[in-house]
């Protein structure tokens, strides 16, 4: 069959991204032709700022060179501006007469810089700032001339001014409004910004209206060149170079001329289709629901949707974007998002430390963040922005909202909280040893835009994740508003599907699905058998939703859960037998000692969880070790109940008011063999001195004279988080009932690999209280469902000493 013809006009960021997305899903559908008015292949326009500033070269910012087009069989017409679209004839005609026919047309012509209609605008030396040509012209001028005037104190103008200054020019920024970046910043933040830019040597003239650009007299053959800028108030300053950065206009000329409906941009619907069904538009030239965007992040969302429809997959709608802003001036930390103008019905929280140079202002309406400005400390910009976009209720966390998510300053990066002030050689990711400079370099040279990209390419933040906030900051300050934190609410499970964890769980429940292939088929997984990330999640969802019905799939479990021991860096395993409540006896200890001798186990260590770890066991020895130990599996390898840490309690301790050891043993006997979305740790202390550290466990119980206090959703690992008070109960039975209900709710609702702390942060403690405390029937039902799920569950070690999964432990020989 003959392929359909797809023609694209405009070889910029949005258009090429659309092609990339489409080639990923449907590589052979079209014969593709691309027209680009610029003489360059596809480059990263937002990095023109560091190019102007001398921090990068044009070569560094190429996203796809001409080879890429060749490899994908795309006909590329560079330096050819399309002059006309012939809709009846279904062809486009370039200025030089080149003609191409289309079955589908994609318009991605971006926007044009707005030029003030004032005398002198056409003089030599008057430029805009949009493409490589402009940038080179400015760099060249900076080498020859001295006085630069930038008209426009917005994002683009300031980045231009900063670049020209770094190139050695005397720079004055003219702005008509009372303060800089008035669309993104409030006055306070703007003044702080102005001060720090002044410290870099920039000059500002605010509330100045430019009236005229004055040129040198033209003389035979030599064109008149800019000499000065004159203002409405009559004053004048010298200028050898004028850069106009006063806004952009969607470039819809071609579409308009072809009779396609435009209204400050080419009007498109939610599938990025214009009024002519054969013609699509993406990028800054498109007007979607009345908005033409001027930042990269929304354009990428559009590209994804448009690609889907061009590929005739017919799914996905673009429903608009909330954008945020980040100025890309090295050393300046600034973040703004949403509406920050305030009003009668909005409240604001402000933190202002003028000496320390920090200003934070959040606007809250109906318990939701609607806008925010951060200056100086932007660590939490992504976090706020995410809550803003997801309209998350912040009532509960309001009192500490201002202090941030503090996912920084925990462990592994020296407590650093500001990426901007970090030197390039400082370590950001303590797990993988990645420095700031490496991350910045990768972002720039590989054209990375998302956290996932950075994780893949540099490994930073891909292990324990505690440096995520820092990496996000570095990303944001390198690519500016082009970085949008991954939406948490509607984040797909993985690259194999567009469905979220929640959707998948729901479908499994509602359609009574019992096996992984059924889920993948029913939910149209893109890959034949998933990946190492979705398969373990699906396996857990099936088992937890349909206990005793769904069958476990060992091949969809991480090796630790398949071998029932922890793999070590040398490929050996560790064995941690269970000691209920941390209590052991001479016979167990003797057997452990004998096993260590018999199997020549190199290391024996007391763990942080009150039990003993045998490290360096050969895989083939595992069943033998387990048989000789004759102790239950400690599940130290599993997303399951780990330990219930206890203190000695009232049995021995002079302060103890409750028998915490027995309570811990009872809890451990109730919950052991229980798989969960992530590991679950508990502790019971016999009095408020809390020697078992109940305050940092998933479930922490503290004995008091009149009963037991129950705390939930604490965490002592990567991100230390204090457990929250759930309730106080009188009896040990109630402790079991209430904690079971909490844990079962977590098992049924959390995403795979959420610890309780992450899950509760998302659903809110109020919700948990409502389900576990207020709804008595519901609590009992949850408790019963957990008991049902655990009924008859076997000890995996015992089963394997009897020969189950034998092949897992035996090597073949040739």
């Amino acid at each position: 069959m003959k392929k359909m013809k797809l023609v694209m006009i405009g070889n910029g960021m949005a258009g090429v991204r659309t092609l990339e997305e489409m080639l990923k899903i449907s590589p052979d559908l079209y014969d593709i032709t691309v027209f680009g008015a610029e003489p360059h292949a596809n480059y990263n326009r937002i990095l023109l700022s560091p190019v102007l500033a001398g921090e990068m070269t044009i070569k560094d910012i190429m996203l796809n060179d001409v080879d890429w087009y060749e490899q994908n069989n795309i006909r590329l017409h560079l330096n050819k501006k399309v002059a006309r679209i012939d809709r009846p004839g279904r062809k486009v005609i370039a200025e030089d007469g080149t003609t191409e026919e289309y079955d589908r047309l994609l318009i991605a012509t971006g926007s044009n810089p707005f030029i003030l209609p004032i005398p002198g605008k056409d003089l030599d030396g008057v430029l805009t700032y949009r493409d490589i040509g402009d940038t080179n012209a400015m760099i060249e001028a900076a080498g020859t001339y001295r006085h630069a005037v930038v008209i426009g104190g917005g994002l683009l103008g300031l980045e231009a001014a900063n670049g020209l200054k770094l190139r050695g020019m005397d720079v004055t920024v003219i702005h008509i409004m009372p303060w800089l970046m008035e669309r993104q910043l409030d006055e306070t933040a703007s003044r702080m910004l102005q001060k720090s830019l002044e410290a870099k040597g920039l000059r500002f003239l605010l509330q100045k209206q430019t009236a005229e650009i004055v040129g040198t007299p033209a003389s035979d053959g030599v064109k008149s060149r800019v000499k000065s800028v004159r203002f409405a108030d009559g004053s004048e300053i010298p200028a050898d170079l004028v850069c106009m950065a006063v806004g952009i206009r969607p470039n819809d000329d071609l579409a308009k001329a072809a009779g396609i409906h435009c209204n400050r941009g080419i009007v498109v619907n939610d599938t990025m289709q214009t009024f002519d069904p054969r013609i699509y538009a993406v990028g800054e030239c498109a007007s979607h629901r009345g908005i033409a965007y001027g930042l990269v992040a929304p354009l990428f969302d559009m590209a994804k949707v448009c690609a889907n429809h061009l590929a005739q997959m017919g799914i996905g709608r673009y429903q608009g974007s909330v954008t945020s802003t980040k100025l890309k001036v090295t050393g300046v930390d600034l973040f703004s998002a949403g509406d920050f103008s305030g009003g009668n019905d909005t409240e604001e929280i402000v933190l202002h430390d003028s000496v320390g140079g920090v200003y934070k202002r959040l606007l809250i309406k109906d318990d939701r963040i609607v806008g925010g400005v951060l200056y100086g400390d932007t660590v939490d910009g992504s976090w706020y922005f995410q809550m803003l976009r997801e309209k998350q209720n912040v009532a509960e966390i309001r009192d500490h909202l201002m202090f941030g998510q503090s996912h920084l300053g925990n462990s592994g990066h020296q407590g650093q909280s500001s990426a901007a002030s970090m030197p390039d050689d400082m370590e950001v990711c303590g797990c993988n040893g990645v420095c700031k400079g490496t991350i910045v370099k990768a972002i720039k040279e590989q054209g990375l835009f998302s956290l996932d990209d950075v994780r893949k390419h540099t490994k930073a933040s891909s292990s324990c994740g505690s440096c995520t906030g820092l990496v996000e900051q570095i990303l944001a300050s390198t690519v500016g508003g082009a970085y949008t934190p991954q939406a948490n609410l509607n984040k797909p499970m993985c690259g194999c599907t567009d469905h979220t964890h929640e959707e998948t769980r729901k479908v499994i429940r509602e359609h009574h699905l019992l096996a992984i292939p059924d889920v993948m088929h029913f939910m149209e997984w893109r890959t034949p058998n998933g990946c190492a990330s979705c398969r373990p999640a699906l396996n857990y969802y099936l088992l937890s939703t349909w206990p005793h019905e769904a069958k476990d799939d060992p091949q969809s479990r991480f090796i630790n859960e398949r071998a029932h021991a922890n793999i070590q860096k040398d490929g050996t395993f560790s064995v941690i037998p269970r000691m209920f409540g941390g209590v052991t006896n001479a016979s167990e200890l003797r057997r452990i000692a004998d096993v260590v001798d018999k199997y020549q186990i190199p290391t024996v260590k007391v763990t942080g969880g009150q039990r003993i770890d045998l490290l360096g066991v050969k895989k083939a020895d595992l069943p033998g070790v387990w048989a000789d130990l004759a102790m239950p599996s400690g599940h130290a390898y599993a997303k399951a109940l780990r330990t219930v840490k206890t203190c000695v309690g009232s049995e021995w301790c002079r302060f103890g008011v409750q028998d915490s050891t027995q309570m811990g043993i009872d809890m451990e006997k109730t919950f052991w063999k229980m798989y969960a979305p992530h590991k679950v740790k508990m502790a019971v202390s016999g009095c408020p001195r809390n020697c078992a550290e109940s305050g940092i466990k998933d479930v922490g119980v503290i004995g008091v004279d009149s009963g037991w206090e129950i705390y939930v959703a604490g965490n002592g690992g990567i991100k230390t988080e204090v457990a929250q008070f759930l309730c106080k109960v009188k009896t040990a039975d109630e402790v079991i009932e209430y904690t079971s209900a909490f844990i079962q709710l977590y098992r049924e609702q959390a995403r795979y690999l959420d610890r309780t702390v992450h899950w509760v942060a998302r659903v809110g403690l109020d919700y948990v209280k409502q389900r576990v405390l207020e709804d008595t029937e519901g609590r009992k039902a949850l408790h019963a469902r957990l008991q049902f799920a655990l009924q008859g569950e076997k000890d995996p070690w015992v089963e394997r000493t009897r020969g189950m999964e034998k092949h897992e432990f035996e090597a073949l020989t040739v």
Partner: protein
Amino acid sequence: MSALPVNSPVSITPAGQSRTWVRVAPLSDIPKLGARVVNSAHGDIAVFRNAEDEVFALRDQCPHKGGPLSQGIVFGKTVACPLHNWQIGLADGEAVAPDKGCTGRFATRIEDGIVYLQL
């Protein structure tokens, strides 16, 4: 039953030495979407079976830090190393970009339900 297609042989054997086919085990001894370790004179070899019953063999050492690939999760024609999750192509032993590295491959063949390995 006729011989199934042979995965392209590669020379990890030094030039001059001849390669021989050796019997490993019945296909059914290797779990679908799983692997077995084969102890050989060439060191440990990981023999994988995917969902389509194709069989692949790689040196059981991840190009990253030597992780035992036989212990990883298999999907499509890829295995995820159990130590730090590098993805290694089963057919070519190459790490999936952006990671870089390669581990040795061995040719495999299935005949009458028996898996053979070329050493």
